[in-house]
């Protein structure tokens, strides 16, 4: 017997409902039930950060969060939900212009974590960028360009 749990929460600014298995993660739910495929499963154990989404404004590993735990007041935001956000656009443009995207698998997570960093700190130094992104792994190992892109995005935003 399958014990489905009904959850209501806010996804990218819209109140939504879903029926999920007790062991289903937020990542599986947003990909399967809502077809939002930017967040990805890299390791499935909170090491790589490819699944990073914002939960109530804070970056979390969506592969380690039970979908059934979400409540009506919870807000989940994925890259798709920041499509028109000026900071996210600056980050995405900087990732492209700095050549920070190689295979691309880690990039949605990288941009989500960078987005939160720039919200908290509009002018991060190199160390702060590295520290903020320490939970996001790029197996193409293109870290220098990713760091340069975050720096550039922060400059773009400050000079707007």
């Amino acid at each position, binding site marked *: 017997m399958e014990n489905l749990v009904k959850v209501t929460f806010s996804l990218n600014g819209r109140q939504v409902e879903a029926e999920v298995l007790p062991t289903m993660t937020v990542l599986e739910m947003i990909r399967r039930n809502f077809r939002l495929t930017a967040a990805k499963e890299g390791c499935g154990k909170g090491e790589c950060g490819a699944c990073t989404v914002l939960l109530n404004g804070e970056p979390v590993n969506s*592969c*380690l969060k039970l979908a059934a735990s979400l409540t009506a007041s919870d807000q989940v935001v994925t890259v798709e939900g920041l499509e028109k956000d000026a900071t996210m656009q600056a980050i995405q443009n900087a990732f492209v212009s700095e050549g920070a995207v190689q295979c691309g698998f880690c990039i949605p997570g990288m941009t989500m974590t960078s987005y939160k960093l720039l919200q908290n700190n509009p002018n991060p130094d190199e160390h702060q960028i590295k520290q903020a992104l320490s939970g996001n792994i790029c197996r193409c190992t293109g870290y220098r360009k990713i760091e340069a892109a975050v720096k550039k995005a922060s400059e773009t935003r400050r000079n707007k």
Partner: protein
Amino acid sequence: MSSISFFRPANTSEACELLAKPNYLAVAGGTDLIVKLRNGLFPNAVALVDISALPFKSIRKEGDRLIIGSGCTMSAVISNPEVNEYFPVLVKAASTVGATQIRNAATLGGNVANASPAGDTIPALFALEAEVMIVGQTGKRKVAIDEFFTGPGRSVLKAGEIIEGFALPLRKTAGEFLKLGERRAHAISKINLALSVFNDGQKRYRIAIGSAAPTVLRCKGAEELLEKAGEIDAATLEKAAGFACETAKPISDVRSSKSYRKQMAGVLLKRALKAIL
């Protein structure tokens, strides 16, 4: 796995009642449990009991104690002004747990309840002489943190009991937490060490070493030596480091070797003492 049930009790007694049943697993932040569940470590799991709706998320003063709710995330602990003012060692330890994404979900209660010998906040709680506040079906009890763990992954927590929080003696401390891992960020400790110093008329030292024995250990030999020494010179540092190495009873495993861990216990103590002197 699909026959597992899910509960999100709104009050403590309901949660305790559920968790008294065999193979009902408590879920707080989920950062450790979900990985284990997916790796098949709980083949007999019957239900997941999400305890995040319980009122265990506050940090408050109560008499001569600071009470930190078990449901506080690492990030909540790190950003709390009182914890920063009184217990820097706990802030430093919590800051080394995982990366931002983990710290935003992982809870202090979860780190302790998991009872991993490598849990980073545990030596800090030892060094601060925390009491574990436990609630169960028949009432509440408090257990000193150094009596809470009985082995790797094991504690005195019984079926139907939940950690509701931690009571820390409210006194200003200086402190340092150091750990060695594969990376500087987001690594499980090969060995870690927490040092807390306070003054109650005399300078007191509290030292705990993690990932160096089946449970975290206090290093009372070094504590007494430092308290008697008064002024800490190079010779005293070396002697204290010797006690730390002696206290450590590590094993060799995937993360590190026995001899390295034993030696590093002393190195970490010297570094921690130098950092706060």
